[in-house]
């Protein structure tokens, strides 16, 4: 048994015990904090998986919300139509075992479909570089959103009610743990060094026998898979999803988490995901204190203003992100590489 897998196992076991102990109390008595906690978990999955593409592999994807939408709607549709069948085998709906199995199955459906979308988008578009890839992925995200908006089967603009309120602490953080494990174990291997070589110098990587296109597609598909899982968790958490929940700004949120945390630093990205989830909550609380002039309330409640300010300050003072490698960023943005 490898050490990394052992750590993951211990983490999952610990998480299981913890969630069995506190889940009930948290979800009922501290519903607000529970909500924030689950959102943090989902955002960690999104940010850590996007970091594999934007951070470690050096590609700039702006379409993570698109993959999340694919996962969310796939999982929701699956649950709405097929959960009774799945649960039927396990003693009917409402049975805790059936609930968990339904969640896992629908997460897998969401994740795999998102991964398939990642493959379909990735193969043609990953021949593009830099800004062009960003534009294509942005376009993909918008296409997905618009397609859902115009598909009656998925509820169109009305949104889609999702059967079951399955998402719980264990699966959210369990999947976050598996996502972190996946990214770290891939990157920390001889195979995984390939992702970093693609980011550093594609020409040299190819000359060293590295199939750069395959690495880019692999990163894209793995990231899309976890975005799909995050989408499924989100759908089963909110129990109601609309296309607007997966718009361009959702992708930007995740990109900001990756940049703030430091591209290519998984620890930094986890912390940034937590910080950027909590920050709007704190600002909202602050906006409604008695000493805050009403004029500032709107400013404080709008998370995008806070994000922008945070990014400006960050870029001026620490462009590599909180935990990033300074030299990596300097190369990315201040690149002078003759042919």
């Amino acid at each position, binding site marked *: 048994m*490898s050490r*990394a*897998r052992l750590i993951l196992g211990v983490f999952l076991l610990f998480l299981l015990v913890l969630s069995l102990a506190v889940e009930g109390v948290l979800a009922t008595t501290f519903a607000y904090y529970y909500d924030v906690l689950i959102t943090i978990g989902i955002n960690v999955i999104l940010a850590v998986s996007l970091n594999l593409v934007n951070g470690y592999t050096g590609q700039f994807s702006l379409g993570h919300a698109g993959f999340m939408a694919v996962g969310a709607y796939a999982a929701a549709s699956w649950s709405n139509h097929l959960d009774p069948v799945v649960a039927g085998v396990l003693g009917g709906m409402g049975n805790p075992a059936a609930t968990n199995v339904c969640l896992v199955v629908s997460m897998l459906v969401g994740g795999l479909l998102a991964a398939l979308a990642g493959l379909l988008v990735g193969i043609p578009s990953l021949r593009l570089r830099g800004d062009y890839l960003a534009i294509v992925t942005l376009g993909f995200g918008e296409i997905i959103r618009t397609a859902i908006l115009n598909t009656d089967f998925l509820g169109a603009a009305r949104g889609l009610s999702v059967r079951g309120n399955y998402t719980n602490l264990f699966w959210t953080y369990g999947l976050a743990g598996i996502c972190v494990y*996946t990214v770290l*174990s*891939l990157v920390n*291997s*001889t*195979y*995984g*060094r*390939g992702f*970093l*070589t693609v*980011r*550093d*110098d594609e*020409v*040299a*990587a*190819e*000359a*060293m*026998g*590295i*199939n*750069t296109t395959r690495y880019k597609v*692999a990163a894209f598909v*793995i990231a899309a898979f976890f975005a799909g899982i995050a989408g499924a968790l989100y759908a089963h958490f909110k129990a109601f999803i609309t296309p607007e929940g997966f718009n361009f700004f959702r992708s930007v949120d995740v990109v900001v988490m990756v940049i703030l945390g430091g591209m*290519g630093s998984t620890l930094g990205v986890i912390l940034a995901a937590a910080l950027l989830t909590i920050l709007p909550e704190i600002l909202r609380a602050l906006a409604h204190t008695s000493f805050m002039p009403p004029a500032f309330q709107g400013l404080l409640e709008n998370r995008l203003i806070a994000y922008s300010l945070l990014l400006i300050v960050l870029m001026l003072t620490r462009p590599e992100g909180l935990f990033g*490698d300074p*030299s*990596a960023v300097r*190369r990315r943005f201040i690149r002078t590489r*003759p042919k």
Partner: protein
Amino acid sequence: MTSKRLELQSCTIRFGGLTAVANFSMVVGPRELVGLIGPNGAGKTTVFNMITGVYQPTEGQVVFNGERLNGLKPFVITAKGIARTFQNIRLFPSLTVFDNVRAAFNVHLAHGPRHAWWRGGKFRAEEAQIETKALDLLKIFNLDRHRDVMCKSLPYGDQRRLEIVRALATTPKLLLLDEPAAGMTPTEKKSLMRLIEFIQEHFDISVLLVEHDMRVVMGICRRIYVLDYGIKIAEGAPEAIRRDPKVIEAYLGEEPES
């Protein structure tokens, strides 16, 4: 098995209207140390890029070990046994010295993402094996004490050598060196010459050397090709090349008419 490791059969490469290399043929035998020289812009690096698949020849064929390389991607060609270094050093700047070499072991890797994820016994055995091999290579070139240093903080000469180590990690049968002596002091150049000869013997490979510095090329190559404006103007032993009027003209210019 032919006695030719690499053969260029009348290769031409055009970029739009510009003919960078015209009708160029050359042969590199097994265990041979061949030089390719020429003034600035003669097309030496273009020949390299043609062999390694960065550019495709417009006409002609590149044959390696009896196999046609035309149309193959660079990473496939590397897997077939041609490794190269770059004129302007292209190490992986965010990786350590050790990881730069480790990354090059990807070519012949038995495990893939699945194994890296599961971290089973076979995966760990292969990783341990790669680590040993990489460290052995670094040791040969006296770079093992820098194993955990970021490669960009190495001195210039060490970076050049690390690039050669990285190329050797792909276990090539033919090593292409693109101006390895560029920017080196005369002392460094001397040790580089010894190093290249050592590599050729120790690893039992062919070496094709593109170089500006005549002393380096003349000192170690048994056969030399000379390019000027994309055309081969001479080939042969160093002594013959040194006396060849066409070569002298290309390097020193024509004697003014009086």
